[in-house]
């Protein structure tokens, strides 16, 4: 038993040191990448791209399921985006509410006859609509049978005619210049083909919106969205920025990302059989390029371009984290032959193992560690000075990492300018390990159990709505 205890204690220590080492490594990469990006961005006039006839053509794909409450405003917001060569494809994924009727009435839609090649198999399309009003000439609405988010996006990909696809959640609010910044990396490719670009998603709770436009950024007032705001800063500004620098990024948020349409189609489009379709597509596109020995890059933009509503209750948050964990496991399983495979370069050597050991396995280790701790404590085997030392070491490093993320935010985009916001963020970081992190671990653990039980559902995600009184219809339950 002592043997097991020692293995547990020192194993935990080694794992923690490896994890912290990775965080330090990623953090240092993120700083230089973010600062270089900012310097470059300050010297760039993006408006040239908006008006140039040589700007690439873009199709926005926005799948919607039971979004009737806000669909009109959300589509209006997307139509007002600052970009010339644009088509907006809204895919009504068999909504049971009045989404379609509202769209038809508000945007004067009429069914059109069009022929397209169904390069990716999807559920049946009932009708395709276009507006009779030239003001909405960029809008195309697909009404289809329910098949889930991946299926809806694949339908959009089949119908899209432009060079690049921007896949977003219809309830997200984009900054006016979001597309200009997201598309630019595709135009800067030299030796490596840019296959996808990811953008930062920020938490919109407590922010002020008018006519689908962001008017004022506020730090979320409630603890749960606020801690997610901090989590997103850490994940996007430090994590993804660093992976982008290493060209090892394998996750582009489903809420906001751009893809080369041809590569997405050639790679087979979104996988219907996973709830982590966003991550799975990026990994598959990367494999597609690597298998053909084509040099490629997945870029990332640190500007806060997309605003989304975070879950405000533990119940909804739990469902979200459960789904994220299942999606991670499914993707890791589908692409298991990448693991430490030098043929895939950084993807096989660093990205995949990182996700396996520190995104998936971290939950298992933390959970088992807690259980073992309880068992050893009951048996009186705990070396308390060692335990307290190790715990405080890990805890304080976590705080240090969060504080570093806040500093990065202050140096770069400094979105939260109200007096006291900095203090609130620091306080949130201090409370996170007690009030937020254990719940996330527990929800992810439930995700692992649900995965083993072969549960496939998304889980109902009720949202309060941005600047809207509660409640709102569920957004997805295919």
């Amino acid at each position: 038993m002592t043997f097991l205890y020692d293995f547990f204690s020192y194993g935990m220590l080694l794992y923690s040191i490896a994890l912290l080492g990775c965080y330090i490594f990623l953090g240092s990469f993120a700083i230089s990448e973010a600062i270089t990006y900012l310097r470059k961005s300050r010297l760039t006039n993006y408006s040239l791209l908006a008006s140039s006839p040589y700007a690439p053509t873009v199709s926005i794909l926005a799948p919607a399921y039971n979004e009737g409450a806000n669909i009109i405003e959300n589509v209006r917001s997307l139509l007002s985006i600052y970009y010339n060569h644009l088509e907006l494809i809204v895919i009504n994924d068999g909504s049971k509410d009045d989404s379609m009727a509202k769209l038809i009435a508000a945007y004067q839609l009429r069914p059109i006859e069009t022929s397209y090649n169904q390069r990716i198999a999807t559920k049946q399309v009932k009708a395709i609509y276009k507006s009779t009003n030239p003001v909405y000439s960029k809008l195309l609405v697909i009404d289809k049978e329910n098949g889930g988010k991946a299926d809806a996006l694949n339908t959009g990909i089949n119908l899209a005619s432009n060079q690049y696809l921007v896949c977003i959640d219809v309830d997200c609010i984009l900054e006016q210049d979001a597309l200009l910044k997201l598309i630019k990396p595709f135009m800067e490719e030299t030796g490596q083909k840019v296959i996808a670009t990811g953008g930062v998603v920020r938490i919109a709770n407590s922010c002020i919106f008018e006519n689908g436009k962001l008017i004022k950024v506020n730090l979320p007032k409630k603890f749960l969205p606020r801690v997610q705001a901090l989590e997103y800063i850490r994940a996007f500004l430090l994590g993804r920025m660093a992976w982008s620098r290493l060209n090892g990024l394998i996750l582009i948020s489903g809420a906001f990302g751009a893809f080369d349409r041809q590569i997405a189609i050639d790679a087979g489009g979104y996988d219907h059989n996973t709830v982590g379709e966003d991550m799975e597509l990026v990994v598959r596109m990367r494999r597609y390029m690597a298998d053909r020995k084509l040099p490629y890059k997945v870029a990332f933009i640190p500007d806060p371009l997309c605003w989304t509503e975070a879950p405000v209750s533990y119940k909804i948050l739990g469902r979200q984290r459960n789904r994220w964990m299942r999606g991670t496991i499914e993707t890791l399983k589908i692409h298991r032959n990448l693991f430490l495979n030098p043929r895939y370069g950084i993807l096989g050597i660093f990205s995949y193992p990182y996700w396996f050991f520190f995104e998936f396995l971290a939950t298992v280790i933390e959970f088992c560690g807690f259980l073992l701790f309880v068992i050893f404590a009951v048996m009186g085997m705990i070396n308390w000075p060692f335990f307290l030392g190790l715990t405080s070491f890990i805890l304080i490093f976590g705080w240090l990492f969060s504080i570093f993320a806040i500093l990065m935010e202050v140096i770069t985009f400094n979105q939260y300018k109200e007096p006291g916001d900095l203090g609130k963020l620091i306080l949130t970081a201090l409370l996170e390990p007690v009030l937020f992190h254990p719940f996330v671990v527990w929800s992810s653990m439930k995700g692992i159990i649900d995965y083993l039980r072969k549960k496939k559902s998304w889980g109902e995600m009720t949202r309060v709505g941005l600047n809207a009184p509660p409640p709102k219809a569920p957004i997805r339950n295919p």
Partner: protein
Amino acid sequence: MQITIAFLVLFKIGNLVQPKHFYIAVGCFTGTILLLVFYMVILLLRKKYQVKKQYFIQQALQEWLVDIILEEQKENHLAFDVPRPVSNLLQKPFAKMELLQELKRLKSSLSGQPGQNIEQLYVQLELDKLSVQSLQSTIWYDKVKGIQELAMMNQMVYSHDILLLTNHPHPEVRMEAQIAMVCFHQYEGLRFFENMRYSLTQWHQLKLLGFLANHPLPAEEIVCTWLQSANASVVQFTLKLIGEQHASNYQHMVIACLGHPEEVIRRQAISCLGEIPSDSSTQALQQVFFAEPNKYLQLAILAEFIRSDEKVDPYFLKELALTEDVDVRLAANKVIFQKQLQENF
């Protein structure tokens, strides 16, 4: 065996790591956290102070700058009056930098006499020296800033220094230098094409086209030299220029590009022929269709047929409409449908 080794490793580490080591690390991390928080507070206070200072300077300069912008052309380029409070303020480097920023903002939205007044003021106050300082910096973003300022303020006297940077290893520096050359001399500025060691990115081409779109193409032999360049991006850019200006006199050369080994050039040539449509270009596109190895370029040819009003050989289209490839068949049917519509119309 391996498990035993793993245990041995762990125990060895175990003997090395004592609780006091953790507390030392905790102390170091706590100290770092406090330092970071302190730095953040200082940073925020500094940002706040700078915003206030900027606002104060902008207020102090506003009326004076408005008068200068509205001033009519001065005889013999007489200097603008600088009131004493403004000249005192401009003794401070921060105020001078702020004025430079303000002039750049104004210049980007003004042309004609107001634009010239800003240029004149820029030189009069020797702000060009600040830009040259940036230009001579070894830091890439300072260099870019300096080039942008000099180009914006039309400081052609520095064009030789800028020309030397058109082959700079940093992509941003050489891009801004090349754009500055075009800004100063239009097509003549493109003389850096002769010795270009790097490719022009799509973004770079878009910026250059923005400057050249309203200027007629240079002499035919120059355009022909560009079209025969070994640098594929130069050929691509030239094809874009020809397309943009609908210069149908280059049609034969564009058609020759349809057989270029580089895919990007063939794609651009197809698109360019769409901008200068004629019977011969349609025929050329039909002829290269089956020889084109890339399916997506074949689809691009069919897309150009849809856009164009020119007649396409119906036998060619019927043959394609029976092909096995769904995408090509679909595109061919779309062309047939479009051509029937045009005929009926």
